[in-house]
């Protein structure tokens, strides 16, 4: 597919045009952070050259999502929520976030039970990804066999140059969106860079399985980490591939909803059972569960590791825990044995 050029000066017009065709989601700043939000012409649109502060997770898997409604006065009917089908354009998603969405597809689409609400969100959205032009300090996508200009999972991609954006459709869905008079065919092509790696390398196959002597007591590896981790939900909420959820029935002023809401394996209540029995009661157990989940358990559960190297967990941690560094050290220690 040929490259098309959009002058930076034409960007506002292009965004206006797109927003007439479908709901448009772009990175915009709100309350101090750049997030993927419905396009608001009054606000400036800034395509960060690298990581967007808040991930794409809530675009496809909202923090609160009704799956059924009921009338509290007559509890004999549960109406399933109807999947959303109106077309949507997602503009400016970086390769790590798109890779994260592809992983989450394994949980909600390519597993034994399909989630039609999530699948509808995915089908109605055209992803026009943006290649990163730099790597931020915590970015380590190259250690997760990704790269800042990786185009997998995108319907179209664009690169930023000094005065323009170079677009290229990757499939028909993307091509349909890029049909615009503002985009002119060009022979100019973005040059591919080779990106540095080796910041937080992890070899999943070398990682010890749950019952390895390296991990189970008397090794104090996880207790040492747990001493300085508060098991708050910040890293799991920031992580684009952490999609654990809880199901809750809620009534409010005559309206009953059964909703899914984000949950975190770091909370002590996450696996606490009615009788009070809690298999992961201690912080160390919860820390171990998250660390091994990302690189060992998800391979067993969904057939792929689930870290895309975006570094948001390291950025958001209120007490300075650096998850990628810890898992890289564990991998090196296990490999060095």
């Amino acid at each position, binding site marked *: 597919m040929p490259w098309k050029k959009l002058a930076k000066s034409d960007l506002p017009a292009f965004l206006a045009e797109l927003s007439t065709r479908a709901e448009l989601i772009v990175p915009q700043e709100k309350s101090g952070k750049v997030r993927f939000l419905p396009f608001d012409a009054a606000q400036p649109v800034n395509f960060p050259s690298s990581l967007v502060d808040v991930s794409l997770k809530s675009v496809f898997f909202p923090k609160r999502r009704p*799956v*059924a409604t*009921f009338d*509290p006065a007559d*509890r*004999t*009917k*549960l109406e*399933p*929520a109807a*999947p959303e089908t109106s077309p949507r354009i997602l503009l400016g998603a970086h390769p790590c976030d798109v890779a994260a969405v592809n992983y989450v597809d394994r*949980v*909600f689409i390519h*597993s*034994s*039970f*399909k*989630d*039609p*609400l999530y*699948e509808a969100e995915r089908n109605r959205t055209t992803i026009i990804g943006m290649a990163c032009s730099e790597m931020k300090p915590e970015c380590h996508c190259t250690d997760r066999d990704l790269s800042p200009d990786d185009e997998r999972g995108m319907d179209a991609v664009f690169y930023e140059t000094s005065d323009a954006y170079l677009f290229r459709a990757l499939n028909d869905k993307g091509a349909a969106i890029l049909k615009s008079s503002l985009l002119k065919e060009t022979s100019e092509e973005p040059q591919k860079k080779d990106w540095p790696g080796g910041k937080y390398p992890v070899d999943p196959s070398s990682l010890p*399985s*749950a*019952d390895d002597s390296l991990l*189970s007591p008397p090794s104090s590896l996880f207790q040492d980490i747990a001493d300085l981790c508060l098991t708050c939900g910040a890293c799991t909420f920031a992580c684009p591939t952490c*999609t*654990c*959820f*809880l*199901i*809750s*029935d809620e*009534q409010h002023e005559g309206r*009953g909803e*059964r909703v*899914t809401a984000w*949950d975190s*394996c770091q909370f002590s209540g*996450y*696996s*606490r*059972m*009615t*009788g009070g*029995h809690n*298999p992961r009661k201690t912080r160390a157990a919860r820390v171990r*569960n998250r660390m*091994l*989940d990302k690189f*060992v*358990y*998800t*391979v*067993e*559960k969904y057939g792929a590791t689930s870290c895309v190297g975006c570094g948001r967990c390291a950025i958001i941690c209120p007490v300075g825990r650096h998850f990628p560094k810890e898992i890289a050290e564990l991998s090196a220690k296990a490999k060095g044995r």
Partner: protein
Amino acid sequence: MAVELVPRAAALRQVCDESADVKSFTFEFMDSSTLSSLPGQFVEVSLPGVGESTFAVSRLEDGGRRFHVSVKRMGHVTKALHRSAAGETIFVRGPYGKPFPVAAWKGKDILVIGGGIGLAPLRPVVDHILANRADYGKLDILFGARTPGDMIFQADLAAWGRDPGIKLVKTIDVECVDWDGCVGLLPNVVKQQAYRPDGSIAVVCGPPVMIRFTLAALRELGWPDEQVYTTLEMKMQCGIGQCGRCNIGGKYVCKDGPVFRLDQIPSVAL
């Protein structure tokens, strides 16, 4: 495309008291569809506005037209369920989970060990064996409860007791007046009965602590891990391997279990 997390309406046909805090509920789907569950599988039962909980199917009737779950009164949903009466609409979805491989057990002797409410998931196993009696060898049932009053499925126990093809042993934790069965905790009774492992299958289900010590007792009697099946208990919510919470290592108890053969259980669980 149905949203899997949204259950189907079912009519609560019958409620019967099994013990002071356990009731059995008989359901029938409103749309008269059948529940095609196999022994060991579970369903998610929910009351709108209250919540949803996981219960093993404790009996199928009429090819799945009607199905039973036996519920111990423990928390928010079970208390609400215990307040429900026949005729009400309750919501059910499932069946979920990997069943007991009863087909692979053909020709073998079977030892069924249930602790308290743990007998509920095992009753369908006994039902299946009795329905295909010729396919299976000796059937030993060992059922333990805290007190005689906690003995659930009294009618079945009586029937199994009278059946010449079943060796039924009942035990309670502490000596009790006019009690004819054994006395003692299940792991000790297993050792007393000295069940022989040769070529037979053991199925264990009950509270986590009972399972742990009963499995240890079986190991002591020489039972190899591949001949012992158990169910693991974890907090479950979605029941379909998506919400992430019931993992033991890389295995989901709701999808890869709740039935596990002892040698397949990640040791991090025990």
